[in-house]
């Protein structure tokens, strides 16, 4: 029965098509296209591009970083880089490299563990090499930039370890080997300091600055007491960088700068508040994952929540407050189109504020006016939590 029907259908089909035939409007068919064909990227990425880290909660072993062209709502995704198992990512633009610090298991979730830094070519997004880190120590956290940083003019990478014993591994990126490991009891996070060293924040509210020798070992170290009151006024771990000054904001909106240009971090005098505003319930506080960022001029941008309270510090924010650190004053408020987790500002001639919203949408605002310019859709994946701007040509790697 069925096959009778189908036979009828087929003959009707051919007849119908014949009846519908008419001379084609286009004399030549579309050309055949070459196989295989793989795109590449410019070695120097435009300053309108950013890297968005998708933590990918639904599959933490399969995190990823999206390379986005923020000028193109039609085609924002330019590529994707693996960022497996609580990975960290580092853009080393002067080297033409993206680095990922990852952990793998031989059977995805079990088996033999391998911690490795992979070096990806910015033009091809192909791996150029890797540095295996022994001991299964690599710190696994919801991603913080301060777990993977450069020092020594970009020749070394620093990797945070946590077993829960705390230490930092020093990697030579050219020799592709682990140079040394610095014990760091009671201290966490890595802030590049001086020409070859780093600072960490410690559990008692002090900071510890370490200068490294050419062999990667500790050349000198110095504790600076009471740089924060962790119980009462904790600082968000991730600062905004302006040159070698790191600007931190506290859970309550106090802004504190640290000069990291010398071998020892120096707290800058004159902490100031992001300010207050009407409409808080109960009050405006910084909130989100990447809550503070800077532009090329040195203005700070802080992601603010009107529902600030104990425990709200990761809840995201609905406004961005712009701060002038010279005037110690807020100079603008930018209303976002949704609650956001992360913000960053491009190093374009006309800078843009890039916003990763909680629903995954990536928004582009004019940084100077705050005006919404375009949306990129969910181009940053399921859980975009960190945005890394591409430095202007010849600029520094942060």
């Amino acid at each position, binding site marked *: 029965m069925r096959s009778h029907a189908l036979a009828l259908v087929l003959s009707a089909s051919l007849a119908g098509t014949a009846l519908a035939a008419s001379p084609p409007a*286009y004399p030549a068919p579309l050309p055949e296209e070459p196989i295989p064909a793989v795109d590449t990227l410019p070695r120097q990425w435009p300053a309108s591009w950013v890297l968005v880290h998708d933590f990918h909660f639904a599959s933490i072993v399969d995190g990823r970083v999206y390379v986005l062209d923020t000028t193109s709502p039609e085609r924002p995704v330019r590529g994707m880089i693996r960022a497996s198992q609580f990975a960290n990512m580092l853009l080393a633009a002067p080297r033409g490299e993206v680095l990922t610090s990852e952990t793998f298991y031989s059977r995805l979730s079990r088996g033999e563990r391998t911690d490795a830094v992979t070096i990806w070519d910015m*033009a091809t997004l192909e791996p150029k090499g890797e540095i295996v880190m022994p001991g299964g120590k690599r710190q696994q956290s919801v991603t913080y930039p301060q777990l993977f940083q450069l020092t020594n003019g970009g020749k070394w990478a620093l990797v945070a370890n946590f077993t829960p014993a705390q230490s930092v591994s020093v990697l030579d990126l050219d020799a592709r080997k682990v140079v040394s490991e610095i014990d760091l009891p009671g201290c966490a996070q890595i802030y590049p300091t001086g020409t070859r060293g780093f600072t960490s924040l410690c559990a008692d509210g002090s900071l510890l600055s370490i200068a490294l020798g050419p062999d990667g070992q500790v050349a000198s170290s110095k504790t600076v007491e009471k740089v924060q009151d962790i119980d009462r006024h904790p600082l968000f771990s991730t600062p905004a960088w302006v040159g070698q000054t790191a600007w931190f904001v506290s859970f309550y909106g106090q802004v504190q700068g640290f000069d990291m240009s010398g071998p020892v971090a120096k707290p800058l005098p004159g902490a100031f508040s992001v300010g207050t505003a009407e409409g808080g319930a109960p009050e405006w506080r910084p909130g989100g994952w990447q809550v503070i960022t800077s532009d090329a001029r040195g203005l700070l941008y802080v992601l603010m929540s009107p529902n600030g309270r104990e425990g709200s510090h990761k809840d995201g924010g609905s406004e961005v407050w712009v701060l002038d650190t010279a005037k110690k004053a807020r100079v603008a408020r930018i209303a976002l189109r949704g609650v956001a987790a992360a913000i960053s500002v491009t190093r374009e001639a006309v800078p843009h504020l890039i916003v990763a919203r909680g629903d995954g949408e990536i928004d582009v605002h004019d940084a100077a006016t705050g005006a919404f310019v375009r949306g990129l859709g969910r181009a940053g994946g399921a859980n975009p939590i960190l945005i890394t701007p591409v430095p202007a040509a010849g600029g520094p790697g942060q």
Partner: protein
Amino acid sequence: MGTLDKLTERLSRGVARRTSRRSTLAWLGAAITGAAAFPVLPVARAASGSPHGGGDGGTHTPYATGNPQDPGDRKSCDYWRYCAIDGFLCTCCGGSVSTCPPGTEMSPITWIGTCTNPADNRAYIISYNDCCGTSSCGQCMCNRNEGDRPQVRPQSNNDYNWCLGTQSSVYNCSTAVIVGVALEQPK
């Protein structure tokens, strides 16, 4: 590598040509049995219950080709070349409709669909080469099955992971490459 590529490319095109008549018949059969080949409403697919889903619910900005003979939005599952695709559209992943994203490797062999271009009314043979070596792109999921046949016909089945003959079999996204015209003249 180059030789293998050429060989497998010939293979895939050969398969395409050998199956073009059957595919074309299937296509015509589809048209007359009432299949509204274009557009298949994205909402129908999104709520379709297909294991392959559709869309991501986010903001969508169309990406037109600019060529009137190749009409449509290359980020939309409704674009004419996607009539038998299954996976993430490479156009949304850093590649294009016919090229793989940076850092991936294009599969040299693949499955074949026959899709009618609504502008010139020609039936084109489309090769859905997968891009491999990076994990699921996660953008622009699209599944259409016009002319798709069970796995017993590998060259007409989009359920296989076609990341074969590549260094890694991990699947990132799918292209829709024109490799020929099924019939030189529509009759």
